[in-house]
């Protein structure tokens, strides 16, 4: 157990962030979930089943790949933790497998989830299919149109996709709608949230389910002769892949870097606030109204950040930087051409920061662990349009 990234306090606070800001109707479910998760996570049988499912179904452990050609280009040593090779194409599966198993353990028969681009929705539908749980996914109407293929993917997996027509009709509103729906069905339904966000115990639980990334990576780096990397770099939307990889290095001397999208930089541009059940850093206007994030990458299009990240930023233990859309496409191209790995646009943010910082903020010959959170197949059509000047 990490000292820096330990459990939150009993109320789910990481420093001044986190907590449980939900309607009374949902509080019993949050408390039940907290107890159920504590119980399960302390039960060797549950932990074993979680790891077994990730191993036999989810494709874990994902490898660490030394990126030799990129390293040579940048004058640093870059190792990539390959979450792109996990089932459904990103780290999202780690979390949904954990939550789906917990759902069954709690005797619930159904999951609901929010999704933006559809990655978490596909992952949830996948875990639900595997465990025989019913599944409904809330998705902003705008996103159902932009990501029509992911809607179909979820439907293929047996899930029902509900277009959300409220608010800005994107991810933020999908979360609202999922919470609203959860109120009505909390007795038999678990809300499978997609990142280290939401009311306690979600940020903690999701981080725990994702910490398999960092724990694996730390061991794997040792096989490459790397005891502690100088930097651990991950992109940050809600922050689950970053939290997962940071968890393996929080007590080490590694510098932890979270890379946000410039247009969704909750740490860089946000202020403390309360949304979606948590106190964290949020993009908001002068009156505390939540502002929409904008990013080329749907998975980073979130106006907040997980509360533990807000806390790590406060502590100075992790640093959060931002990169603009313009450099992200180039980073995606560079990684594809040098290493034969087309990263997700989200992931390409972390790569873009490496390209910018190598030899500068990252001193020459540093050792860097890059969390390669997902594959770019989902983004190829969009990247093509952009490169052709079509959008």
């Amino acid at each position: 157990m990490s000292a820096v990234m330990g459990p939150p306090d009993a109320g789910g606070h990481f420093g001044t962030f986190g907590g449980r800001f939900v309607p009374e109707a949902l509080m019993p479910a949050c408390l039940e979930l907290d107890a159920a998760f504590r119980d399960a996570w302390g039960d060797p049988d549950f932990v074993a089943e979680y790891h077994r499912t990730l191993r036999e179904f989810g494709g874990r452990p994902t490898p660490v790949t030394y990126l030799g050609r990129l390293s040579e280009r940048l004058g640093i040593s870059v190792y990539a933790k390959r979450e792109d090779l996990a089932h459904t194409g990103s780290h999202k599966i780690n979390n949904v497998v954990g939550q789906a198993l917990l759902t069954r353990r709690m005797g619930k028969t159904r999951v609901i989830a929010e999704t933006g681009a559809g990655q978490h929705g596909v992952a949830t539908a996948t875990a639900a299919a595997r465990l025989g749980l019913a599944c409904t996914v809330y998705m902003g109407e705008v996103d159902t149109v932009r990501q029509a293929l992911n809607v179909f993917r979820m439907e293929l997996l047996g899930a029902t996709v509900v277009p959300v027509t409220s608010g800005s009709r994107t991810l933020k509103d999908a979360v609202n709608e999922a919470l609203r729906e959860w109120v009505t069905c909390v007795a038999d339904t678990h809300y499978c949230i997609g990142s280290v966000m939401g009311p306690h115990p979600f940020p903690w639980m999701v981080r725990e389910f994702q910490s398999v990334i960092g724990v694996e990576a730390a061991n794997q780096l040792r096989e490459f002769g790397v005891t502690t990397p100088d930097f651990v770099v991950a992109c940050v939307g809600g922050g689950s892949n970053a939290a997962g990889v940071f968890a393996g290095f929080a007590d080490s001397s590694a510098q932890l870097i979270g890379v946000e999208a410039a247009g969704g930089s909750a740490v860089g541009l946000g202020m403390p606030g309360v949304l979606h059940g948590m106190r964290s850093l949020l993009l908001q206007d002068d009156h505390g109204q939540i502002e929409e994030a904008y990013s080329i990458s749907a998975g980073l299009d979130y106006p907040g950040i997980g509360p533990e990240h807000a806390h790590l930023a406060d502590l100075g233990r992790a640093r959060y930087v931002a990169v603009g859309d313009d450099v992200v496409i180039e980073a995606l191209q560079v990684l594809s051409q040098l290493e034969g790995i087309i990263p997700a646009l989200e992931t390409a943010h972390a790569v873009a920061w490496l390209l910018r910082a190598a030899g500068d903020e990252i001193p020459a010959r540093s050792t860097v662990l890059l969390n390669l959170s997902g594959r770019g197949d989902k983004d190829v059509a969009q990247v093509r349009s952009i490169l052709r000047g079509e959008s």
Partner: protein
Amino acid sequence: MTSLDTRLRDLRTRRKALVPYFIGGLTEDWTTYVSASILAGADVIEVGVPFSDPMMDGPVIQAGALRALGNAATLESICHELSAASFEVPIVVMTYYNVLHHFGLERSAELLAQSGVAGVIVPDLAIEELTPWRDVATAADVSSVLMVAPSSPDERVRRIGELSQGFVYAAARMAVTGQAADVGDASRVVGAVRAACDTPAYVGIGITTAEHAREAATIGDGVIVGSALVQRILDGASAQELEGAISTFRRALDQASSEA
């Protein structure tokens, strides 16, 4: 005892409380709807201060909040208007925590108190995170009205009952605000509140028709009607038409009183 506690305990001895809900800033003349409803017999006015992400609200109030935000409604602008209107019945503001959090808890409490607001309902503030707000609000004599839900176990209801000021908002069903076809679990929820405390219990969430209101009033000490009224205003009802609607609710509640 807050002022709201005192007033509503007194009200309980006289009649069932009718609590219509209005969205601050929904129309330019929104306070005239409030005045009309007071004329028609409203006992307490619930005023929604809009938030971009109203997690506890259904489609009608969401649409209303969005419209109000489009009209540049803010906590300050609404308080300003309430202050100017200076209604004689108690005003209870309903808003989400971020609105208060962003403006500052103490600053919010002071502003609300100065504007004549007697209480605040913050639907995303359950008892676990309540203390900082309740403390500053109580200091300003602004009551914290808390909700009990059908899912709340007895032990929670007891604690909520202890902490809720003015009245307890008894949610009739597991749902967000909206219109429904019955009074749901009102009876069970109010029963739990009554067993836990002596604070008046008002029934809300989904109360749509006068008949529901009457039924709810036979159960609780008051009735909160939200979406059903907001929908009328969104549909373009005049203040006079709204006054008619409120009168109907008033009669239903008075009928419930006489039955009791």
